[in-house]
């Protein structure tokens, strides 16, 4: 019993370390060399469209609703202390520090990450990656790198948009609907929110999340078993692993940035 448990632990441990090594090597090979700008820029732009622009709708709608819920919940809690004037900072800080980067990363993993994995996996299964290699074109540079950069660039932008529209959602509910004073809402918020501590730290968080989520997504696709079952497994793994890693790293980053 104990022996089996230990064996499983050892096996999982070596598997994880091997996956880390392989994925690190893959990423290194994909993005290390100096990019040929005129050739790669169009590829990155195309992927920015697929990964970023096409995720806009879900990010904006979710951001608006989450901001509205924050406004509503925050108001009912704060009014109990007669502190409804602090609604502005409550909404803004929760969004900028936590919800913006984290929820964006989770939605991104589900919307764009899974699509990246499935697309790359399918290219592998239909031998498109192999045939590229045989045309002396490195699929890491041609397929993986642009997708990685596009994910890395678009997620922070999406997180900024998420937070902005969330704050507007909080304003709609708090000010327009529940009657918090508009001047108080914005001025107390401005007094409490610091650009460096709150906005920039949020951006740093979402850069870190962008890195890991996109990395996981492209690696799962690139290393998946080239069968339909393998692709579906890899896609699920992308979403599960990326979400878990984001939540775990969020705790670490939060305690580094905001803990004392």
């Amino acid at each position, binding site marked *: 019993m104990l022996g089996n448990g230990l064996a499983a632990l050892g096996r999982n441990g070596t598997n994880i370390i091997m996956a880390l090594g392989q994925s690190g090597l893959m990423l290194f090979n994909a993005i290390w060399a100096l990019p040929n700008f005129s050739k790669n820029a*169009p590829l990155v732009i195309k992927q920015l*469209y697929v990964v970023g622009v096409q995720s806009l709708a879900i990010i904006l709608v979710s951001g608006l609703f989450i901001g509205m819920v924050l406004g509503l919940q925050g108001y009912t809690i704060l009014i109990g202390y007669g502190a409804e004037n602090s609604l502005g900072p409550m909404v*803004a800080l929760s969004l900028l520090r936590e919800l913006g980067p984290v929820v964006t990363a989770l939605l991104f993993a589900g919307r764009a990450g899974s699509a990246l994995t499935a697309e790359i996996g399918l290219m592998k299964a239909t031998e498109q990656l192999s045939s590229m290699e045989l045309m002396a074109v490195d699929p890491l540079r041609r397929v993986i790198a642009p997708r990685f950069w596009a994910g890395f660039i678009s997620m922070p932008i999406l997180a900024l948009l998420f937070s902005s529209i969330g704050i507007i959602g909080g304003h709609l509910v708090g000010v327009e609907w529940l009657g918090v004073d508009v001047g108080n809402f914005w001025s107390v918020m401005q007094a409490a929110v610091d*650009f460096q501590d*709150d906005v920039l730290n949020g951006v740093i968080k979402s850069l870190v999340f962008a890195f890991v989520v996109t990395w996981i997504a492209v690696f799962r696709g690139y290393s998946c078993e080239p069968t339909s079952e393998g692709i579906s497994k890899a896609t699920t793994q992308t979403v599960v692993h990326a979400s878990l890693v984001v939540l775990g790293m969020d705790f670490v980053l939060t305690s580094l940035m905001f803990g004392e």
Partner: protein
Amino acid sequence: MNNRKIEILVGGFICIGLAALLFLALSVANTSSVTNGETYRLYGKFDNIGGLKVRSPVKVGGVVVGRVTDISLDQESYLAVVSMDISGRYKGFPESSTLSILTAGLLGEQYLGLEPGFIMPGEDPESQILTDGDTIQDTKSALVLEELIGQFLFSQSSED
């Protein structure tokens, strides 16, 4: 979907991203620009700093003129030493100014209130002005709620 349209959409995407950053910087956050430019450093010693923190604002008449940059304990006097960066735009506070730890509202954040003093007539005005590295002598510590309540109860009982 042709390339041109994709390029335009991606350009738009990046632009609204920048717009969001601008919105957050200008309308949501205080960019703490007072301490971004040229600053000079002042010190103050307190018995008790209460809940004052690094980056707490320093205000004169409600206007933010600087920020707390460091809080440490003087090993000899056991007083708290607060360092603050004051914006170079606000110069010429007299040496007789008072520095107090105040609270925004009943439960709000604590900040440093700087109350400008006056300049003695007859003496050299230059030498009476706070400059980089000076320490403000006249300080009032934070009000600690428990102490206040204790004092209040004590005064009540002594009146009986």
